[in-house]
């Protein structure tokens, strides 16, 4: 009852304040090839805006690619070597804005805000020096030049489907056995608890493998979302996430008494955070600290990062080792707790 009353309040607060697509203090990188006073003052202008925070100054193409793949920044500002002199001699210069378009909405918003900041700067120096200056931002959408939504939702859908199939179904089937009394007979039989658990989990694991394959086939051949990185790595990471979801399902099943509760916990406790806090719908950077902290324990957040990095950006294990390690840790933790709390008796 309390949950039913509290839910709308919580949701309104989360949606209204915490989860926004607005740009605020987004980390960007700067590659200043010019280093002249004009460049420095444009960078200062960017830094001064409340939208951006300069996280990294890079000095080579490779370095830029690397920070993008790591997902540390969402946009980069590149100032050409002749920025200051072009501006001085021709009253005209161009800068490059490179955005991580694996999330096209965010990329669009960011470049828009950045262009506006640059525009403001242009207006100001025009007024100050009483000469018409033009700074032209050239926008480059990295990874996803056509800005297609599929690049964003394929990884999100993968995380959601695996979670639904594995966690919810595993939890529900085991709890159902207990409700119908078949678990009672299974326990009295010589079948070992571990075997019972495995027998329950394996079909859903296989089902998930089929699901992953069909999602990937569809996204490559129908949606034209290429797999830039290693397919093997992507599959491996997906199996890892499947196992995490399975063990989470087992854990739920050992703790709840009825199918209804299992369903409720899977939906409210897992699906909602997965949709809202994995970064799939709302950028994690924009969330207030408490939500950002919560998002760290949402397995889908890490998996979503991995899929985006590997599939869209073509990153390798070297880039996603941290996420992989976190998922492995979660798997071990959930498995241990689930197996330990699986009761060999009824009470």
């Amino acid at each position, binding site marked *: 009852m309390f949950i039913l009353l509290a839910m709308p309040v919580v949701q309104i607060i989360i949606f209204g304040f915490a989860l926004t697509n607005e740009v605020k203090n987004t980390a960007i990188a700067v590659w200043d090839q010019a280093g002249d006073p004009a460049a420095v003052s444009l960078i200062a202008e960017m830094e001064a805006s409340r939208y951006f925070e300069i996280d990294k100054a890079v000095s080579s193409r490779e370095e830029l690619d690397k920070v993008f793949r790591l997902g540390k920044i969402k946009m980069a500002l590149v100032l050409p070597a002749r920025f200051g002199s072009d501006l001085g001699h021709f009253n005209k210069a161009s800068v490059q804005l490179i955005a991580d378009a694996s999330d096209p909405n965010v990329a669009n918003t960011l470049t828009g805000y950045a262009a506006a900041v640059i525009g403001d700067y242009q207006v100001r120096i025009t007024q100050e020096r009483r000469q018409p200056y033009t700074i032209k931002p050239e926008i480059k959408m990295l990874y996803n030049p056509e800005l297609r939504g599929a690049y964003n939702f394929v990884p999100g859908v993968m995380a959601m489907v695996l979670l639904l199939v594995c966690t919810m179904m595993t939890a529900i089937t085991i709890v159902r056995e207990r409700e*119908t*009394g*078949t678990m*009672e*007979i*299974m*326990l*009295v*039989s*010589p*079948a070992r608890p571990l075997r019972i658990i495995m027998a329950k989990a394996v079909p859903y694991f296989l089902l998930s493998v089929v699901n992953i394959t069909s999602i990937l086939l569809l996204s490559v051949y129908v949606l034209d979302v290429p797999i830039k990185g290693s397919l093997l790595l992507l599959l491996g990471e997906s199996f890892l996430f499947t196992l995490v979801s399975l063990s989470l399902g087992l854990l739920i099943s050992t703790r709840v008494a009825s199918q209804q509760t299992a369903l409720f916990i899977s939906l409210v406790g897992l699906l909602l955070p997965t949709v809202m806090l994995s970064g799939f719908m709302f950028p994690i950077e924009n969330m207030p600290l408490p939500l950002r902290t919560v998002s760290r324990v949402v397995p889908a957040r890490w998996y979503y990062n991995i899929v985006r990095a590997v599939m869209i950006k073509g990153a390798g294990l070297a880039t996603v080792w941290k996420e992989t390690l976190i998922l492995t840790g979660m798997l071990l933790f959930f498995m241990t707790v689930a197996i330990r709390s699986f009761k*060999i*008796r*009824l*009470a």
Partner: protein
Amino acid sequence: MGNGGVKLKRKMYAVSVNNIAKSYGAKKNVTPALHGISFDVKPGELFGLIGPDGAGKTTLFRILTTLLLPDKGTASVDGFDVVNAYKSIRRRVGYMPGRFSLYQDLTVKENLDFFATIFNTSIEKNYDLVKDIYAQIEPFSNRMAGKLSGGMKQKLALSCALIHRPSVLFLDEPTTGVDAVSRKEFWEMLKRLKAEGITILVSTPYMDEAGMCDRVALIQSGRLLEMDTPSAIIRDFSKKLLALKGPDMLTLLQAIRSHKDVADAYPFGEFHHVVLEQDDESGLLGYLQDNGIAFEAKMAVPDIEDCFIQLMKEER
């Protein structure tokens, strides 16, 4: 009893229960289910645990099938301790829980196959044991278990519990919710299984099923009221029992109860059963006639239900 005594007892009996107690809940809300129960079942015996809902039958069965841990006391099944040697017990007992507990969305055949596999055996290996029972549902072997009638579900559940040829079979209220014809058939099946040498413990809330058992334990509120052969329990009913009926049963009952010779009186089917304080019924019958109450009277032979009622009232 010393340790040697306990061991000897374990060897002698198929099931040995010593002072088993169990409560549910924690701290403030403790509900006792069993208050130190003891009994033994001989190998090959058909033993009935008879008592109403909430008497503790299911709790006791769950302790014996290693599904629950007792709070106090010890118990062994087929010589194995229910706490320490639970794995050995799980290999050799058959258990049919009270509610229907087969896979509703598997067919009859698939259910049987499944349970055979779980017990590392095959249908063929022990087919002769379940043949009589399974043959009756075999025509429906491709039907989903969930779509069987009550009587057929019960036969399938029994087949599944027997497929590994258990040495001890626990049946928790197998006849609840099953019609009279199926109940009768069920007890006949149990008789045949007993002939195969399987020890059977069966619980039931229906007193009239006591007569089918070799020995019965009457259980009420977690305590054993009595344990013996059905005929010995009935023989122990020492007081004189009358059966009376009349056109107005309610008035008759109230009049009977108001007489001093009457120890107890209660409706019993078509009649009222009257337990007398003394052997002479003429005082009561004369009193009823004097009050103008029409009735017929005859001597009644007590049955298990009469015994249960008396034992319950003594307990209170």
